[in-house]
């Protein structure tokens, strides 16, 4: 049985990407700042050391081009997120190109570290493709320079041991940077994943709460009463501000959407409305599972949230059946209870089939909620689990 972890819910990948882009912009500010400092130091050094003005000018232009590109992409990135993506890749290529250019201009072993600086700047983005570009650029540039321009890095006490050591430790260094970047990218992904999953979980839990409440109490929102109250409010507001029928149009459209009138008929009756605007207005309904009700429910719970500093990064926040402090027996019991509860179902929760359980446990983040050994047993014996649960529940049903 193969196991491919997938994101639990359709759509959250898009939200996760949005989260990444939101934070990418702040990283860009840091990159611009570092590039500006680099440019200043380089121009200062080349000018003071009396380098040919052609070199000073060319390096100034290269740095300026990179900074301008970053600023432009930052500005256009508001309109189209692809500019932010493009910026990462072009800047990575750019910093390595400038580093190589400086190595060729200065021809000094001290400039070898410029490649590491370029890598560190690109590492700011914490992106997998950027990491790939950086690694290939660093490795290729280093090997090319060491093979063809060995004299750039010849120090006074050169020896065979020194050459081998340089090769060996640069390769070791690149490997370390690669692993480090990979894990850091993944670590950042953990938070984005958790937030994206929690957003979807929240959305579904609100719906679950609404449905359970309506089923338990048999009570639904009094739509007519709400509309009457808001119309009275609109009338009082109109009188106060001196504008006749201030909210009448919107309320009339909302009433018709609530009544389930077809879009075409509403659009025909209210010339300013289009299918898109009606779809947007439907979010302002407050009955059933509509958006505005969810907003009100969420606002109503916000005051209950009280996060203490020590709760941040606390492992107890991560709900799992794989707490390091728990014994294996407890982990086994936790998973067995979980599995049996899914099979049994309860009020408002139908019993799940083995295929549903297996798919959701093995192919989503739930897999990591459990001890790896317990998961191995389940993956290899899920049919046995199914048979045990079926036997237990069937025997009881026969009584």
């Amino acid at each position, binding site marked *: 049985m193969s196991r491919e972890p997938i994101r639990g819910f359709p759509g959250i990948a898009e939200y996760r990407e949005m989260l990444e882009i939101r934070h990418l912009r702040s990283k860009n500010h840091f990159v611009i700042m570092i590039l500006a400092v680099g440019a200043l130091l380089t121009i200062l050094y080349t000018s003071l050391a009396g380098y040919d003005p052609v070199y000073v000018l060319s390096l100034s232009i290269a740095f300026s081009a990179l900074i301008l590109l970053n600023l432009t992409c930052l500005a256009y990135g508001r309109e189209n997120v692809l500019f932010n993506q493009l910026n990462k890749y072009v800047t990575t290529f750019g910093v390595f190109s400038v580093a190589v250019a400086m190595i060729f201009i200065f021809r000094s072993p001290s400039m070898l570290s410029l490649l590491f600086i370029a890598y560190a700047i690109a590492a700011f983005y914490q992106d997998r493709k950027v990491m790939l570009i950086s690694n290939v650029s660093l490795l290729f540039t280093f090997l090319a320079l060491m093979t063809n321009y060995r004299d750039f890095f010849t120090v006074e006490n050169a020896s065979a041991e020194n050459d081998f050591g340089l090769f060996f430790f640069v390769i070791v260094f690149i490997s*370390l940077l690669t692993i480090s970047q990979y894990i850091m990218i993944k670590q950042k992904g*953990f938070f984005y994943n958790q937030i994206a999953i929690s957003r*979807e979980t929240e959305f579904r839990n609100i719906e679950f709460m609404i449905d359970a409440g309506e089923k338990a109490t048999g009570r639904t929102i009094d739509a007519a009463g709400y509309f009457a109250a808001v119309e009275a409010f609109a009338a009082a507001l109109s009188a106060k501000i001196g504008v006749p029928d201030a909210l009448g149009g919107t309320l009339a459209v909302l009433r018709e959407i609530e009544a389930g009138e077809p879009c075409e008929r509403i659009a025909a009756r209210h010339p300013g409305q289009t299918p898109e605007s009606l779809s947007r207005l439907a979010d302002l309904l407050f009955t059933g599972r509509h958006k505005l009700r969810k907003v*009100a429910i969420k606002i109503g719970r916000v005051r209950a949230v009280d996060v203490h500093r020590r709760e941040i*990064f606390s492992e107890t926040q991560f709900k799992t059946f794989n707490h390091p402090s728990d014994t294996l027996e407890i982990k086994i*019991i936790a998973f067995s209870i979980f599995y049996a509860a899914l099979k049994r179902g309860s009020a408002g929760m139908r019993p799940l089939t083995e295929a549903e359980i297996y798919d959701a446990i093995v192919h989503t983040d739930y897999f990591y909620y459990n001890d790896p050994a317990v998961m191995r047993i389940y993956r290899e014996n899920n049919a046995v689990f199914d048979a045990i649960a079926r036997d237990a529940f069937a025997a009881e049903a026969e009584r």
Partner: protein
Amino acid sequence: MIRFLRRVVNTDFLPMNEVRKIKVVLIMTFLLIVTAATIGFAFFFDYAAVVKIVVMAVFLLGVGLIYLLIRFNRIMAAIHVTIVYTIALTMFYTQGTDSFYAYLFFYISLSVIVFYQELYIFLGYGTVVAGYGVFYILKHAGNLLAPDDIPGSIYAYVVLLLMFYLIFLLQSLHNEKLYTDLNLEWVKLNQVIGSYQDFTLFHLEEIRKRDKGVPFYEDRAFRKAVDELSVFVCEQLREHGRDITNVLDLYIYIHERGLGKIIENEELSTATKKIANRLDKYLLNRRTDMVSILLNFFTRFRATEPYRPNRYEYHLGRLAPATDEQIVALAFVYRVLAVEPSAFDAWGQPDKIMSHEEICQLFAAPEMEEFLSDGQIAFFKENADLFRDHLGRKG
């Protein structure tokens, strides 16, 4: 090995303590490789043979210590030992050879330190390494210079090393803030979800009682299923699988007696109380971790509308761009808050409704940034009496 690599690949699903453990294991492997290489390089070092042997023995002991710390789950201690080990390696190389490659160890050390992504660790150890690096460059300038090097080459070494340090320091600062913000957002989300689940659980319990159903922990079939599943899994992993039923009995007993009474019971051993305490988070008679995970899991199988880009948008300003729509939306939200229960009352019933004053207070809270624009809040304040008189609860 394969399992470890699989965990590395799936790091984005693992909590922080697990990731730390993976990082230490990776650094330990890296140090083991470098130490093995050092045995070869040590032949060229200027130390006396006995010093080389003693240092290599200490390094190997160091790897053993890191292994033991990982094995006994002392991850933070292991992190410190790996860093000290790396710095010691750096010193061994830089003091032992004039070769250029020794200089690379400053970059290697900084990379090891930054790998852990702990700001204070980077500030402490990273600064020491950068400081030692600058001292080394200035003191051993001859080892690093080319026969006809550029003017001020030594200062280029210093500046580049410090830049490398500062870039990673900036990155650590940025990541620290990013992770704290993301974590705070996540913790808040978890708490809000918990408050929905309190209501859901209350209603599900009402439905269960109305339908004359039995709770999970009183259901014999459920207990039998859990018992047999636990024994089955335990027998695959342990020699005496049946022993697990004792823990299971304790689990059921906590439901009947409550954790407090078990902890107070002087007849029970400390070990039993410890197990009971750990089992508490998996009880089924209130909103525990187990119940939360179950509810979240079940929501996956409930029908919901298809994904839209504004699915997780709760800001009225963005949901309703036109001013009149925003006012209508605000009016409806006020009405929901003023007439629908949103908390448990003093009798534990989900019937508490917010008063006008509480809503005013809520709308003035900084958390409203997520839901309302400044303009909407100002509009509410200006017309609060209209909201109260026409949209509030009557009587």
